[in-house]
């Protein structure tokens, strides 16, 4: 049950061109982000969702801190009471085909007490949601990971994680859109074109989108 305030805990000042809305959890963040993206109050620009916050950039010539604060509170309350319906998902659900051949698969099995096959089964079972992006263009933080697979990052990050690596860490699943340093635990790889600047949107993992992983190749369930 969402609180009557829509879970909006605070609206903090971020200089003179942005505010940070603090919510009581990711569902509230995603609901507010989706609603503002579908119906922007005057002057509202970029929205950057994160685990418990939504950064709202604004044009100070078109609105101000006080007005925006009221608009966010009104919207959060309206979402909570149902007087504003959450918008329909903007993107179709996505299925990502994964070869579960990652170098950390055995280690994740050992950390969780599961067999490798069980790790794959647990990772392919949920319907994930892209919570937010960050770290690199096209890198999405996916929620919905089975709690058993909530493993910490590697103590020593790799200097180069291959593009297409499917990985878990800190309760999230992510896919590396290109080769980069990284400390997440690598379960497998995908050929899905995660980032293409000639496509609109350039990222496959767009905030709010539903994602499923299916196993292909040697890791696929018999």
């Amino acid at each position: 049950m969402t609180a009557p305030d829509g879970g909006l805990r605070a609206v903090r000042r971020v200089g003179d061109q942005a505010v940070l809305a603090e919510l009581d959890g990711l569902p509230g963040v995603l609901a507010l982000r989706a609603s503002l993206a579908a119906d922007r109050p005057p002057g509202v620009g970029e929205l950057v969702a994160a685990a418990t916050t939504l950064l709202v950039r604004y044009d100070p010539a078109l609105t101000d801190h006080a007005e925006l604060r009221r608009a966010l509170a009104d919207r959060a309350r309206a979402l909570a009471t149902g007087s504003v319906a959450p918008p329909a998902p903007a993107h179709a659900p996505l299925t990502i085909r994964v070869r579960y051949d990652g170098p950390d698969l055995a280690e994740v099995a050992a950390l969780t007490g599961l067999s490798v096959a069980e790790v794959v089964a647990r990772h392919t079972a949920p319907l994930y949601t892209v919570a937010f992006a960050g770290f690199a263009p096209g890198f999405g933080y996916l929620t919905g990971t089975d709690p058993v697979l909530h493993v910490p990052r590697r103590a020593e990050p790799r200097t180069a994680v291959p593009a297409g690596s499917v990985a878990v860490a800190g309760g999230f699943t992510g896919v590396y859109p290109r080769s980069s340093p990284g400390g997440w635990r690598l379960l497998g790889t995908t050929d899905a074109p995660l980032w293409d600047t000639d496509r609109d949107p350039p990222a496959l993992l767009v905030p709010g989108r539903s994602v499923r992983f299916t196993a292909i190749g040697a890791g696929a369930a018999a």
Partner: protein
Amino acid sequence: MTPWRLEILATGPLATVQDRGRPGWAELGVPRSGAADGPALALANRLVGNAVDAAGVETTFGGLRVRARGPGARYVAVTGAPGAVTVDGVPAPFAAPLALGDGAVLELGPPASGLRSYLAVRGGLDVPPVLGSRATDLLSGLGPAPLRAGDTLPVGEPAAPFPGVDAAPCSAPPGEFALRVLPGPRDDWFPPAAVESLCAARWTATSDSNRVGIRLSGPELRRARDGELPAEGMVAGALQVPPNGQPVLFLADHPVTGGYPVIAVVLGADLPLAGQIPPGAAVRFRSARV
């Protein structure tokens, strides 16, 4: 007809293509990027009659040498951090339209103050845009790679009439930089007097600074609480405080999210000045009225 182009003969420490950046993609993890001193590039564009979104060269500590190639003469202008400009070895005015004929070599020396200078060419640099911008984003690798000697940059066709201005008066960046800040969003992670301490101290920009951010050195800003802040959205101008208590001031290529608390944020109007802070310069912050 052969198009106009610029041959890069020398780049100095770092020269990149910049324009107004690529706003609107932050939620996909893409920094805004663009000129670190936006008004300086805008002035260079105005001096040669370009649209405001035309791309030019951003230099770091000067050191740029380019050769003009193409039919007839083409106007260019240099703005931002003021360095000595020569055309074929002859001193030429700063912040003024300069006509370069085929084969003319323009050279920009190191600035007497400030850090970044801008070269605009009438018609704009016509490298392929990525997500609507030609800016080099050093954090995420979008846009053209940093310029190297031997590169050739295509120049577009003029889009607007030539303004016919002789020169634009502009002031040089100061030796000590004073930036206005608003406290927050995470000033409550620090003791009550922390913002006062931030504003009382004289900070030094370290050499570990770039278009992503400026690492400042000064008194340690201790936190009032332990634990980790979940990563949250960041803006240019944010003063993020890592565990060592030495703040980082985010510039144009900053990451879109970050996990260290932001004690205060520089006002948007002062960001172009922040883009001119050279390593070693003194930086002060003043608390702005809400």
